């Protein structure tokens, strides 16, 4: 029996504990420094995803789909491209399913332009990336399907052309995953990395029975698959170099992917999240060769050597040490992983130290982004969540099919705080998230969120964080290097704040976003120095830039102030 002298403090502790139920942080009262509002209803985006399911529990249903945010028509407004599934074998099709492109009209209004753009692929869309593969100044689209893939060439007049067969990147009948454009050989042409999930066919389909009901199988119930690498030949075609590059020697269960120069040797490397298998880190050794080094680099698994169900990665310098770190989402009862880049090609799992498992571990986690939502100069973390077993609540109330997203705010000292409960009504929506994209949709200097939901309409969150901090957005335009500047490394110095990032094509959960780089500057109203290190070694330096604007930087020339943000909207100079 507990002594009386111990009971009072215990009661107090218990009451305090109960007062905190059930949320990790207090219920929303006064909003915090980050505010995300659900504005889906006002946007005109009516896209509704299908995974093509019909009760057979094909594993491919669980991994659909990603999305892309990018400015397809060059009008300075970020548009959105949603991937869609399609009816799978045994499912009765009620209506044709296809991908959908929504053109941004400004003021958070969008219009569907799929048919006029010609990008309504009716394949089973899983992953997507964007890149100007032919350097004609127009961003092109690559869709990674369950089935043949599609390369859409942007014609520049609001329309695209399917050039998959001609380009040689259709790749056959695999279950796709993430995809990335990258210039791995520094020849100025964007090459293509195409990840594959497990080897699923209708013939090897399995659906285990649990408590009398069929469930989705585990990825470990299927054979692994290698990924593909295609080298851009500069003439609109690609040559497959999977085997010669060394990429093909490693079979996995790829999901989200990201390309980054993690070891700062000027060569772009590739990180692949694998589902219940060791992750891959393909280190670019030059000469078109890659070595798989994840285990030795410390990113193959989590801190205890467990193979997590790697879903989506993003990278960013969360602790301002000048090195790109990696963040990765995974399954329920698995902590998301924050890999801190130590330099010298090594990473350390700092998940516990950083506090990124707080309030996240019980969810199935998918799309993610290292994004500065409040422009304080520190990268925060947004995670889209949602279960994959749609009947999970029949078995347990410890999990839920629909789940709220998670927002972790960077405290600026290497740790994060879960602020999901105090960051606006957009964080209270219950979703079945998969791909998530982050871009400034209304050009107000605050990054917004678009969420692809499985079997449901998309969700759009508008960033309405207090406008108290400064920011800078940077668009790169390569001349000798690839036109998008993919792989270029950018450093921004504002007072005591130094930030670095790279231009990526394809990131998060099988998605694409952030071609336009965004830097929060905190209280700094000017950027002292901006450095761009292009692939191939060229460097451009700009100094003394005003904040709160989009700056377009052409390789080898002075910065061109192509647009100026005013209170009334965006103005472009010719």
């Amino acid at each position, binding site marked *: 029996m507990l002594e009386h002298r111990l009971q009072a403090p215990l009661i107090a502790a218990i009451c305090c*504990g109960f007062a905190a139920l059930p949320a990790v942080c207090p219920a929303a009262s006064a909003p915090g420094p980050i505010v995300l509002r659900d504005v889906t209803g006002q946007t005109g985006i009516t896209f509704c995803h299908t995974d093509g399911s019909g009760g057979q529990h094909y594993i491919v249903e669980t991994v659909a789909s990603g999305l892309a945010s990018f400015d397809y028509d060059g009008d300075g407004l970020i548009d959105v491209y949603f991937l869609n599934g399609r009816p799978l074998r045994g499912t009765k099709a009620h209506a044709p399913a296809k991908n959908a492109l929504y053109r941004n009209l400004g003021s958070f209004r969008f219009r569907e332009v799929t048919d006029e753009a010609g990008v309504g692929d009716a394949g089973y869309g899983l992953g997507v990336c964007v890149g100007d593969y032919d350097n004609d100044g127009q961003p092109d689209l690559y869709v990674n399907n369950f089935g043949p893939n599609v390369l859409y060439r942007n014609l520049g007049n609001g329309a695209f052309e399917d050039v998959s067969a001609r380009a040689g990147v259709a790749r056959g009948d695999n279950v796709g995953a993430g995809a990335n454009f990258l210039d791995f050989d520094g020849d100025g042409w964007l090459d293509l990395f195409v990840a594959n999930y497990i080897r699923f066919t209708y013939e090897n389909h399995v659906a285990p029975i*649990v408590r009398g009901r069929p469930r989705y*199988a585990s990825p470990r119930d299927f054979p692994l698959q290698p990924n593909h690498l295609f080298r851009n030949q500069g003439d609109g075609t690609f040559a497959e170099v999977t085997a010669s590059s060394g990429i093909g020697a490693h079979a996995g269960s790829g999901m989200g992917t990201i390309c980054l120069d993690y070891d700062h040797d000027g060569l772009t490397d590739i990180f692949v999240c694998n589902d219940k298998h060791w992750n891959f880190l393909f280190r670019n050794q030059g000469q078109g060769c890659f070595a798989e080094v994840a285990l030795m680099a410390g990113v193959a698994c989590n*801190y205890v050597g467990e193979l997590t169900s790697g879903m989506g990665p993003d990278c960013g310098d969360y602790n301002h040490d000048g090195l790109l770190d990696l963040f990765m989402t995974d399954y329920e009862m698995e902590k998301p992983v924050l890999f801190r880049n130590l330099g010298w090609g*090594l990473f350390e799992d700092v998940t516990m130290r950083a506090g990124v498992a*707080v309030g996240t571990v*019980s969810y199935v986690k998918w799309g993610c982004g290292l994004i500065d939502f409040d422009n304080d100069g520190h990268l925060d973390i947004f995670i889209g969540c949602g279960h994959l077993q749609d009947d999970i609540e029949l*078995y347990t109330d*410890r999990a839920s099919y629909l789940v709220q997203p998670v927002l972790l705010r960077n405290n600026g000292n290497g740790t994060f705080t879960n602020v999901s409960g105090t960051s606006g009504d957009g964080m209270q929506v219950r979703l079945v998230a998969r791909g998530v994209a982050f871009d400034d949709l209304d050009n107000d200097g605050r990054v917004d969120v678009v969420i692809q939901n499985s079997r449901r309409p998309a969700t759009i969150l508008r960033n309405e964080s207090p406008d108290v901090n400064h920011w800078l957005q940077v668009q790169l335009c390569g001349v000798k290097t690839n036109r998008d500047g993919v792989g270029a490394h950018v450093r921004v110095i504002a007072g005591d704040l130094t930030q670095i990032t790279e231009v990526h094509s394809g990131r998060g959960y099988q998605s694409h976003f952030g071609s336009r780089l965004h830097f929060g500057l905190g209280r700094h109203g000017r950027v002292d120095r901006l450095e761009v290190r292009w692939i191939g070694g060229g460097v451009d330096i700009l100094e003394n830039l005003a904040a709160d604007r989009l700056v377009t930087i052409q390789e080898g020339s002075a910065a061109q102030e192509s647009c100026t943000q005013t209170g009334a909207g965006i103005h472009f100079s010719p």
Partner: protein
Amino acid sequence: MAPGRGRSLRPGYVAEGLASGERLSRPTRWLLFLAVAVAVPAGAILVERVTRPTEQPPQSPSTRSAPSVQSALAPEHLPSSLEAVPLPALPTTTEGLIAEANVLADRLVESFPGSPHALSLAGQVYYTFGRAGKATELWEQSLRVRPGFAEALCGLGVVAWERGEYVRAASLLEHGTTADPGLLREYVYQLADSWMNSGQPKRTVALLERAGQEHGLSPDGLFVLGQAHLELGNYQEAKLRFEQALAADPRLASAHYALGTALVALGMPEEAQKHRRQYLQKKQRDLEAYDRRRKALLASGRDRADPAEVRTLLGRFSVEAGRICALEGRLDQAQAHWLKALACNPADSFARQLLDALRREQGRMSHLGQARQ
């Protein structure tokens, strides 16, 4: 324990396993330490008598191969006092057995609304079979009846831990294991992990160093201690603990991996690579065995939620429910629970001992009653 292996000690793992289709593991041993000598004197005496012969948890090999519980109970194996007692029939499906467990919990709550033990055990049953909300209610109720009731604090602590509410989890688990140090062995992993995830690895080190001095640490305990030292940047100490863990259990792949991490930090990359390779070999072996089991299960077409596993758990819960009834003086109900425990597992020697003691006690009481007359 390392997270992957620690799953088997988490209350509620069964529900997760049932939800995910993963194989289930043995139930938490804390259930079996639920012996508190308080309450109705007859019950207290009974509990004392039945626990005196042995304090060891019962061995319960899976009854998967026993086609019929009744037929396995040959009369010559029963204590003579039980020969004439029929064992209750049990459902044969997983769903039926889970329903049976839920009924057990419901009846505990109905019968003993003022007993923190009953409420807490009922909470454990609900949590194990996927009703965390109901479990939380009962643990909270248990604490209202008896503030500081250790099992309830720890139950709520595990709920918080699984939700990633580490600060709260650490507080609840610390208070619970302070109130009943006997529970520490069951919750040490969750407590250590909660501290490490809430910026308090020093407390993990202090706890495990003390436990190591008092009782010695298992390989998994050494591993967690090493992990805490890693979090603190005590790389030399971390290296030592991982090496000790491996010396105690060379199969511990995680320790090889973590040792590699410590060696990298100590500037010994070549040594680190050796251990990472050993990790890979051992982990690969573990995975291959795991994949073979999965494949066999898939090929068999059997339900992944094995009724035998649920029956084992139901048996354990029945033993504990019986002890609570005995403490409250409800000896007929106690007998019913222990008979059910035997029905779940005919080889459950602990349930047999309890029943035998009950019978002897009933015979003695009857004799005393007759003598007074």
